[in-house]
């Protein structure tokens, strides 16, 4: 499958199934769009009619370009065949290991953000903290179910994990004490709102956590609109200095400053630029997840504005990279040479199969976004997965399982999308959250364009 688009002065052709990326001139762009549906003579005649006034566009030239396209097709770099559907089902059916857990160590929070998908950390339930015993069993459960996988990931999540920090430390210590024995390598992530972040905690997090995710929505007025404490006081002035100090001490280890944008700040690039101007270089910004009836839900009218924002972001990032002050944006991190294999691309995030969320009581859910929805309770960390019917639904989800994805050029970039988003938008994890798809496709178009611009800059620097 081929996807063609024009962005930031580039004519871009993606060959979905091989992962090939081409930049072409106007003539080749039009020839490629006609290649499969027209004869050589028809293409030549059409091109001469449109571009014949240009000195380098002759019948012979067009003929050569068609030959080049045929060579790329022959080499499997253009119009390559989609042969992965069967693989998508067999791979997931045969893969029974669990390799990542989202540990909900605190179902409570010291902020009261009205837009929180987790209802201020309670997940539509009671407030609770995970005990060391429950957490320890979660690690034992993970190791017992991880097969030969060496890299295991555990995310300390909430609510706010700082409210149960002693247990976080005890669990890390426990995991480190057993990882060699089982030939495992734990990678920890800690997701925090930054309200409680002492020097001692920073030192600890920087030593033990492979990644920290720091929640900040951007500009003070944007952040403080939702991210407030129970007295109504905004969090910006507390968390920004904390995050700046933590990141400085982190000395290059992974982190993300992660925000959420809503209908209230459709100009979210200004929030990302603000984060960058605060000195943060690893950024992520996600569209809000909420019912469409919420006043801050993104609307259809917002969509073209958001497209424009993603383009503005991409162009500004190229500019800042050239100026020697780059920052990264999670969704634009695309490594065309060392990206994921086909199995990752067709299998998706692994929710409900290789990735699960654990509640403070030890219940298992397909991911953090399903926690509290009893229909999706999979089992618990003592007895394992008992609700195999629901797990099978997740096992069935892949890049090909949704009818709408079948002919979509982006399916090997998103793998069919987020099951939770599908569920919330359509009532089924097998549905398609079309709004999210539109945003996702735009982000990939921008990300690929940025890769092309960088490759071109590197080439120019070498020559």
């Amino acid at each position, binding site marked *: 499958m081929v996807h063609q688009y024009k962005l930031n002065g580039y004519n871009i052709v993606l060959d979905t199934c091989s992962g090939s990326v081409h930049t072409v001139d106007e003539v080749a762009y039009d020839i490629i769009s006609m290649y499969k549906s027209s004869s050589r003579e028809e293409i030549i005649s059409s091109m001469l009619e449109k571009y014949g006034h240009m000195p380098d566009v002759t019948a012979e030239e067009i003929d050569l370009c068609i030959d080049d396209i045929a060579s790329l097709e022959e080499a499997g770099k253009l119009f390559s065949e989609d042969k992965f559907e069967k693989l998508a089902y067999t791979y997931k059916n045969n893969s029974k290991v669990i390799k990542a857990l989202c540990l909900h160590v605190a179902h409570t929070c010291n902020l009261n953000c009205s837009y929180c998908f987790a209802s201020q950390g309670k997940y539509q339930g009671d407030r609770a903290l995970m005990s060391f015993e429950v957490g320890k069993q979660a690690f034992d459960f993970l190791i017992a179910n991880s097969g030969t996988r060496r890299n295991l990931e555990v995310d300390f999540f909430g609510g706010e994990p700082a409210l149960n920090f002693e247990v976080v430390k005890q669990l890390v210590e426990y995991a480190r004490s057993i990882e060699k024995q089982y030939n495992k390598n734990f990678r920890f992530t800690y997701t925090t709102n930054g309200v409680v972040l002492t020097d001692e905690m920073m030192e600890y997090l920087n030593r033990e956590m492979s990644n920290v995710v720091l929640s900040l929505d951007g500009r003070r007025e944007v952040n403080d609109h939702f991210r407030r404490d129970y007295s109504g006081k905004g969090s910006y002035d507390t968390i920004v200095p904390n995050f700046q100090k933590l990141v400085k001490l982190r000395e290059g280890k992974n982190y993300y400053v992660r925000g959420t944008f809503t209908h209230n700040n459709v100009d979210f690039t200004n929030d990302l630029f603000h984060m960058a101007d605060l000195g943060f270089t690893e950024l992520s910004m996600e569209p809000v997840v909420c019912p469409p009836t919420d006043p801050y839900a993104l609307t259809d009218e917002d969509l073209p504005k958001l497209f424009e924002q993603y383009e503005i972001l991409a162009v500004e990032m190229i500019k800042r990279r050239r100026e020697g002050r780059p920052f990264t944006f999670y969704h634009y991190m695309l490594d065309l040479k060392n990206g994921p294999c086909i199995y990752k691309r067709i299998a998706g995030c692994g929710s409900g199969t290789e990735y699960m969320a654990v509640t403070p009581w030890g219940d298992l859910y397909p991911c953090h976004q399903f926690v509290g929805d009893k229909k999706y309770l999979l089992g618990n960390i003592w007895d394992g997965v008992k609700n195999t019917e629901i797990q099978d639904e997740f096992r069935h989800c892949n890049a090909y399982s949704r009818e709408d994805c079948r002919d979509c050029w982006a399916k090997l*970039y998103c793998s069919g999308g987020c099951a939770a988003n599908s569920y919330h938008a359509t009532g089924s994890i097998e549905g398609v959250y079309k709004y999210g798809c539109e945003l996702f496709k735009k982000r990939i178009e921008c990300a690929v364009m940025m890769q092309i611009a960088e490759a071109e800059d590197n080439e120019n620097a070498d020559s």
Partner: protein
Amino acid sequence: MNRIKTVETKDIVKTVNNGGCGECQTSCQSACKTSCGVANQQCENK
């Protein structure tokens, strides 16, 4: 090819035979937590 420039990329088709080790990061563990993107994950089996 003077009208077409091909950017160097990983050939996805070839990874049918040498991929699938499963050691790479779970997408949601990194930063998004609310959407699925697999293309920006790093391969651990280079």
